């Protein structure tokens, strides 16, 4: 007959071992995060196919932004928007908004690739605005320059680890590790929501690609120490420490001085 306590102890050890495997090589290992839900970057505008942008605009956008993008009480003018702004808003699902007085929120995109390209082409024809920046992340990207630019300009709101943070006033600087490179570039140029815009003289086009490359690096290769627990720093580390202490060490002390021990009977 197997000693019940020994069997229980071995089960606990086996479970702990399994847990260790799960977080080191198994399904929960520190692996690249799954990709975002947004659609990848647009292609050249002259290859637009599908429904004309005007028809889409009239049915989905004109009610708030005006038939020629001149703006209404419900929505701002789009004459200075440019392709970058339209592309960003549509791909991140921020636009179209269900109702005009709600806060602008990230959401699933309402349109498919062809529709987005058509709308971008149509709305950017209303006036002048920043074009979609050409953001390239590849082996020759200058990640070090990207880090320097990111820490100087972006980390204060978006976090050194790109994990995002609240900025007050109900606004949140979102986490950036899942953001496709082109959207990183678009956001920097247009300054969506509460974010300021930065133009070429503050952050060059080269810097856009470098920053995006640095974010890609952060996503995949910046955690040699193991699980990052959200990348928000000591707050999460503190919760883990207490969890480890309360679950691990308290259980251990209770086991060590458990009531029914063979050793207690008089010799």
């Amino acid at each position, binding site marked *: 007959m197997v000693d019940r306590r020994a069997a229980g102890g071995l089960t606990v050890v086996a479970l702990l071992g399994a847990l260790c495997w799960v977080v080191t090589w198994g399904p929960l290992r520190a692996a690249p995060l799954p990709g975002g839900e947004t659609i990848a970057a647009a292609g050249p505008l002259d290859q637009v196919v599908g429904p004309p942008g005007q028809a889409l605009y009239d049915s989905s956008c004109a009610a708030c932004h005006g038939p020629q993008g001149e703006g209404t009480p419900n929505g701002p003018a789009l004459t200075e928007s440019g392709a970058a702004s339209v592309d960003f808003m549509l791909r991140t699902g921020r636009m179209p908004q269900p109702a005009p007085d709600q806060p602008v929120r990230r959401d699933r995109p309402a349109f498919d690739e062809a529709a987005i390209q058509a709308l971008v082409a149509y709305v950017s024809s209303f006036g002048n605005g920043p074009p979609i920046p050409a953001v390239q992340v590849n082996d020759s990207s200058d990640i070090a320059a990207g880090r320097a630019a990111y820490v100087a300009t972006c980390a204060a709101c978006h976090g050194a680890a790109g994990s995002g943070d609240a900025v007050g006033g109900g606004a949140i600087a979102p986490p950036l590790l899942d953001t496709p490179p082109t959207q990183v570039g678009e956001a920097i140029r247009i300054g969506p929501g509460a974010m300021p815009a930065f133009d070429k003289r503050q952050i060059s086009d080269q810097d856009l690609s470098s920053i995006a490359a640095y974010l890609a690096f952060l996503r995949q290769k910046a955690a040699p*120490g193991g699980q990052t627990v959200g990348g928000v*720093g000591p707050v999460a580390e503190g919760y883990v420490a207490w969890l480890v202490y309360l679950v691990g*060490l308290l259980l251990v*002390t209770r086991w060590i*001085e458990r009531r029914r021990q063979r050793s207690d009977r008089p010799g």
Partner: protein
Amino acid sequence: MTDRPRSDAGATELDRLIGWLDERTGFAEVARGALRKVFPDHWSFLLGEVALFCYVVLVATGVFLTFFFAADSRPVTYDGPYVPLRGAQVSAAFDSVMRLSFEVRAGLLMRQIHHWAAVVFVAAIVIHVCRIFFTGAFRRPREINWLVGFGILVLALAAGFTGYSLPDDLLSGTGLRIFYSVAEAIPFIGPWFAYLFFGGEFPTVELLGRLYVFHIMLIPALMIGGITVHLAILWIQKHTQYPGGRARETNVVGRHFWPGQVFRSTGLFLLTAAIIAVVGGLVQINPVWVYGPFVPFAVSSPAQPDWYIGWLEGALRLGPNWEPTILGVTIPSLFLPGIVVPTVLFGGFALWPFIEARLSGDHREHHILQWPWQAPARLAIGSAVLTLFVVLTIAGGNDVLAVFLHVGVEELTQTLRILAFVAPLIVAAIAYRLAIERRRRDAEEEQ
């Protein structure tokens, strides 16, 4: 001294060794008494040991780290394997921590075990203090040990703060700036004290070396001395015990020190070290390469200290924007949350045995503990203060929490400001009622 005749017949090697030592020191009698000393066995009596063993892990890993760390703020250009920092201007200290993390085998593991041991160390002390407090173990004759323990807690906080500031990274450097500002808020001598400690206007090149001296020399010396005194007093006074069974004020019921307690404590040490080791290897902590080197005009958010300084951070975040100027003297807005609140809380904490003795009128010796509900007033007060610390610590991470709870930071901060006053009172009232009830039921059962 006369030679004591020893018969060699049947003497083992150990016998001979003991004899050799005893002839020169007379230690055998003391040792025999020590081996047979009785310690009561309750799991809650192991909590202080958990803290002690965390400290052993800290010293062991810390010694390793000192061989690699350079407490030097001179700028160097990083050219190691971590690509994003290549070419960046960093301090030699930061550079040495990068090398330790990326180029020294087992270096990152040692760093992470060291840091996890530090955060768990303070948690262990806090739980141990709670056990001491809520069972009344600090009462006469153990007031001195309470004070020594208080000193150990303060040293632990100082060790942690100086320790995580050593890598000279953006996050800890921001914390040092706040520490400098709080020092400036000391009445009248603030700027002088800040200039003295730091060596000038923030940031200074001297600071890193001074933090290092505190962290590896002054604080450990005081800590080891304090722990030794703490254990010596405990040894001399014998351990307290819970009521029940054969326990009396005049005895100690438990197990001999050897082999029972020694084996269990050794096992506890190994298991504590094992748990810290597994967290140290699997969960990343303080990734300084992500924060980057400290630059005085850059900052990252969220910006928090390690959890055990979080209560102070929360007090600063919840503090009112009062900055009155009275008779030409400005009282900085940091003064109330940064100087007054810690002084009151920690002052009360340190003096508690004397405060309680005065309030309760109980100046007798106690070796039998109380169950927490047997002292309802103490339970209520302790619960209230604990709740306050918890609210303040949570407030220290209010921006992270706001994102997690999908609420606005401003609204959460206002709520926590109210909770800081209301929650302790509510918890105290509930604790008091529950304790009174339990005491009443216990009294009825005894009849």
